[in-house]
């Protein structure tokens, strides 16, 4: 076993996830809002200079980062890896599986990857539109004046919401409220429209087991809908931290320590 302290940072659109691995085990993890992270813990001088002390990180031997946009994640002395790879490693670490399909739904990004024999063999990403992501759920929860957690618990009998655009969906939802559609059906409708937008991305990824990660993996309704398409849908133990864990695990793998 390698006795290394590895710091993995996943810079997402809503949160920065930080994980610390020691002797191959995650010993610490926390998240900071992305805006706060850049404003309060970073300086920018050609590269990102992070104030780790302030962040509460003592010391570490290796740093690996991932996230959206190469410049945004270019932390000094850190190795950058692409997000898809980070998620592949994260899921291998969290499940021990070598063959799987992983759906990661974050604040703005959706990624689907296929891993076979521990190697990425297929992938797809959302582009042009982020109406199938966490930010959409947040906006809709605000309109319904409900917590994300409660919103995600309703999946039966969803009201139909057809807008392609997430902003138009808001007015469509308000229209349904005006029509007196029950609260439960409104919530379910929001969840179902998210699922409907994810489906085209998943058509190329048929299989028996689907792993779920990202903040939206906590959405119980989404899980219910996906169960219709896969024999088994597993939410990773730490869905939000999958990318950060993957960064840590990558450091071990690339050292050849845990082949």
């Amino acid at each position, binding site marked *: 076993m390698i006795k290394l302290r590895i710091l993995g940072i996943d810079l997402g659109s809503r949160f920065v996830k930080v994980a610390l691995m020691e002797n191959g085990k995650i010993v610490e993890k926390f998240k900071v809002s992305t805006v706060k992270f850049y404003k309060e813990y970073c300086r920018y001088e050609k590269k990102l200079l992070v104030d780790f002390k302030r962040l509460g990180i003592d010391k570490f031997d290796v740093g690996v980062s991932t996230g959206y946009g190469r410049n945004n994640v270019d932390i000094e002395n850190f190795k950058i890896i*692409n997000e*898809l*790879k980070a998620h*592949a490693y994260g899921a291998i670490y969290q499940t021990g599986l070598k063959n799987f399909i992983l759906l990661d739904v974050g604040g703005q990004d959706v990624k689907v990857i296929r891993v*076979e*024999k*521990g*190697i*990425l*063999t*297929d*992938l*797809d990403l959302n582009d042009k539109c982020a109406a199938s992501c966490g930010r959409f759920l947040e906006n809709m929860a605000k309109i319904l004046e409900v917590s994300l957690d409660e919103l995600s618990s309703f999946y039966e009998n969803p009201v139909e919401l057809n807008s392609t655009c997430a902003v138009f969906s808001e007015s469509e939802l308000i229209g349904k409220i005006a029509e007196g559609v029950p609260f439960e059906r409104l919530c379910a409708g929001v969840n179902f429209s998210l699922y409907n937008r994810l489906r085209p991305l998943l058509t190329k990824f048929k299989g028996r087991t689907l792993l779920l990660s990202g903040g939206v993996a906590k959405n119980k309704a989404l899980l219910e809908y996906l169960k219709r398409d896969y024999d088994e849908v597993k939410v990773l133990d730490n869905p939000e931290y999958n990318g950060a864990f993957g960064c840590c695990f*990558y450091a071990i*793998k*690339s*050292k*050849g320590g845990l*082949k």
Partner: protein
Amino acid sequence: MKIGITTTVPIEVLYAAGYQVVDLNNIFISSKDYLRYIEIAERDGFPKSLCAWIKGIYGACIENNIKEVVGVIEGDCSNTKALVEVLKSKGIKIYPFSYPTKHTLDEVKKSIDDFINQFNVSKQEVERVRNKLNIGRKLAKEIDRLTVEFKATGFENHLYQISLSDFNGDVDGFINILKQKVEEIKNRKPKVKKLKLAYIGVPPMTGDLYDFVEGFDAQIIYNEVQREFAFPRFDMVKDIYEQYYYYTYPYSLQYRLEEIKKQLKERDIDGVIHYTQAFCYRAIDDIIIKSQLEVPVLNIEGDKLNCLDARTKIRIEAFLDMLKDLKGD
């Protein structure tokens, strides 16, 4: 007189009969008009949802005024069977050839004897041609060896082995080209790459694959089917019957896999790219291939275009990236 072929057949017989052999696949894929060949086939009624090779072969045959074609009616796909029927209906003379379903030396012998009889040539003459072609095969084998040493590129390996399906229609001329190429490659300094890749499956529509992977510190050093077209065991067989008996491509997947596994081991391969053609039944083979090979396998699919699409490029890049992690520094 030209004769077209749709896949590798005992060309020894055809050259012995005085024909100039033209592999229609090679004409199709090396032409700048390749998309027009597909278009010709579609205009004549070939479905959109059909392998581009079949349509390309058809277009190449019609456009290049090929009047005689060897049709492989067993051991190749059922699409070829139907293609042969269409060509026949257009007045093209078809000489049938079969790779027997029952893979025994006896059956192969029967099939080749039948082929020899159709062209009315002697067995001696066929063997004489075979010995001559073996000069080219020896040179192709040398290029294959030089590829493992990273002196020849993946594309050169592909090109000079695949071309042996018809010797470019000019046996002497092509042997000379091969001789010069071997000399040139031999004197190169090896460009060693971190990842050793194997390419398996039908030859690609997307020839840029070879150069593309070389941009990621990787090289294809084994081309399965192309190597089979060059008959690498030519020096271990005693006659034409054995040569086509030990040829792997038209027989069972299991038989192909035995040779693939042997080569992966000998060449110390890190990862496999399994190419399949859109709408081809061979895509189903991928299930068995993945379950039987120990090294990671990436299945990519080509359709009409002769270059890799953006999505396939990203997939290859991600695959190679993780293979490199596995290999360590």
